[in-house]
């Protein structure tokens, strides 16, 4: 007897129906409205990474006889008191949030750049909300991607903000766009910033993501804005976060130094 499998196999009924064939096209199909051409040109940074950095990073991060290193986790009450039953769990020792486990480094998890998140908070937009539009356009110009608007989340009368006010813009860029952004930063923008020391070694969220900021004057050095400088009398500072697959900040910094970013200061974590 053949066992019924219709409970175990998930069926996408949308694809079975003959209606709306144009909505069932795959993302890579050129007839799909969401189609985005990929691999249209050489990716210099990706080639550099695969040819040079990847094998070096594998060797640098290798440690012999690695074990899974457990991160700091929340602590349960031991149950010695009946009041422990509904008590909320204790935070990790010495911290407020849990940290991730560190897995053994192998050829499968060599650190690489995942995406770049760019955030632009416009303080002046509290009084002049139209400045958000300029910040949005500025991010669109320098990232070549779709930018999202940022709204305030809470009411704080002392700061003059109400919930839902437009207050900035943010963008997340992947792949070729992100790589172009990195090379633009390293070859055209950062070398021309006066007194630029590098990214501080104190930056990082302990799980391999490094952040640094650019002032409004630094942003003017992006070629997209510089070539049209008279239109960009007012620019806005940005925060740039490199999200990497590195498990610690120290490894993420080694990766970013390979992509051409200088670092300064004492390194603790």
């Amino acid at each position, binding site marked *: 007897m053949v066992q019924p499998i219709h409970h175990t196999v998930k069926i996408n009924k949308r694809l079975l129906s003959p209606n709306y064939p144009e909505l069932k096209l795959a993302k*890579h*199909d*050129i*007839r799909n*409205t969401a*189609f985005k051409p990929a*691999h249209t040109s*050489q990716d*210099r*940074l990706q*080639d*550099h990474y*695969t040819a040079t*950095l*990847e*094998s*070096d990073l*594998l*060797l*640098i*991060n*290798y*440690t*012999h006889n690695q074990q899974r290193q457990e991160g700091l986790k929340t602590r349960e009450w031991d149950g010695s008191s009946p009041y422990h039953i509904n008590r909320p769990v204790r935070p990790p020792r010495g911290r407020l949030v849990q940290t991730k486990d560190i897995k053994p480094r*192998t*050829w499968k998890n*060599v650190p690489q750049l995942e995406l770049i998140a760019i955030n632009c908070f416009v303080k002046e937009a509290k009084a002049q909300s*139209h400045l958000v*539009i*300029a910040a*949005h*356009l500025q991010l*669109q110009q320098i990232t070549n991607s*779709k*930018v999202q608007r940022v709204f305030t989340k809470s009411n704080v009368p002392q700061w003059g903000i109400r919930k839902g006010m437009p207050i900035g813009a943010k963008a997340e860029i992947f792949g070729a766009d992100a790589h172009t952004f990195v*090379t633009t930063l*390293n070859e055209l923008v950062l070398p021309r910033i006066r007194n630029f020391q590098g990214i501080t070694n104190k930056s990082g969220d302990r799980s391999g993501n490094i952040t640094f900021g650019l002032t409004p004057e630094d942003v003017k050095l992006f070629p997209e804005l510089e070539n049209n400088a008279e239109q960009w009398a007012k620019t806005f500072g940005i925060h740039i976060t490199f999200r990497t697959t590195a498990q610690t900040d*120290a490894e993420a*910094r*080694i990766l970013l*130094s*390979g*992509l*051409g970013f*200088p*670092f300064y200061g004492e*390194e603790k974590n």
Partner: protein
Amino acid sequence: MTGVNFQFTRGKRNKANRTRSPATERVLTQLKMISQRRKQPKLLQVCQEDHIRHETITTAFKLYRQEINANRAKLLLKQYESIKYAMEDLEQINSYLFHEANTNQKGKRFDLEMRIPTEYPPNQIWLHDYTPAEVAEKK
């Protein structure tokens, strides 16, 4: 109505007699630049034959890239195993050297002078005596 200043114009208000400040115009231009209509490219119209051709080429290129990535992963695995065997041997031979080789390399940096290579690095960095080629005059 109080507090509202209408600038009265003769006749109906329309686009021609509308006045906007330059600041407003600038914001409007910026809004036009970020509108989604500008980002949506025209949908490609291809016949069935061309579509099949395109799909074939795309699939072939995908397979080609898959092969390259598989080779890369294989090389990395080989490198990883070599490192592992070398460390196992070193552990047997010399414990001091093993300890030195196994220390955490935190704070290591690639050289700042290491540049991301370009496909065509220039032989001549700057064309200092550039003169534009003469264009033949149209008759």
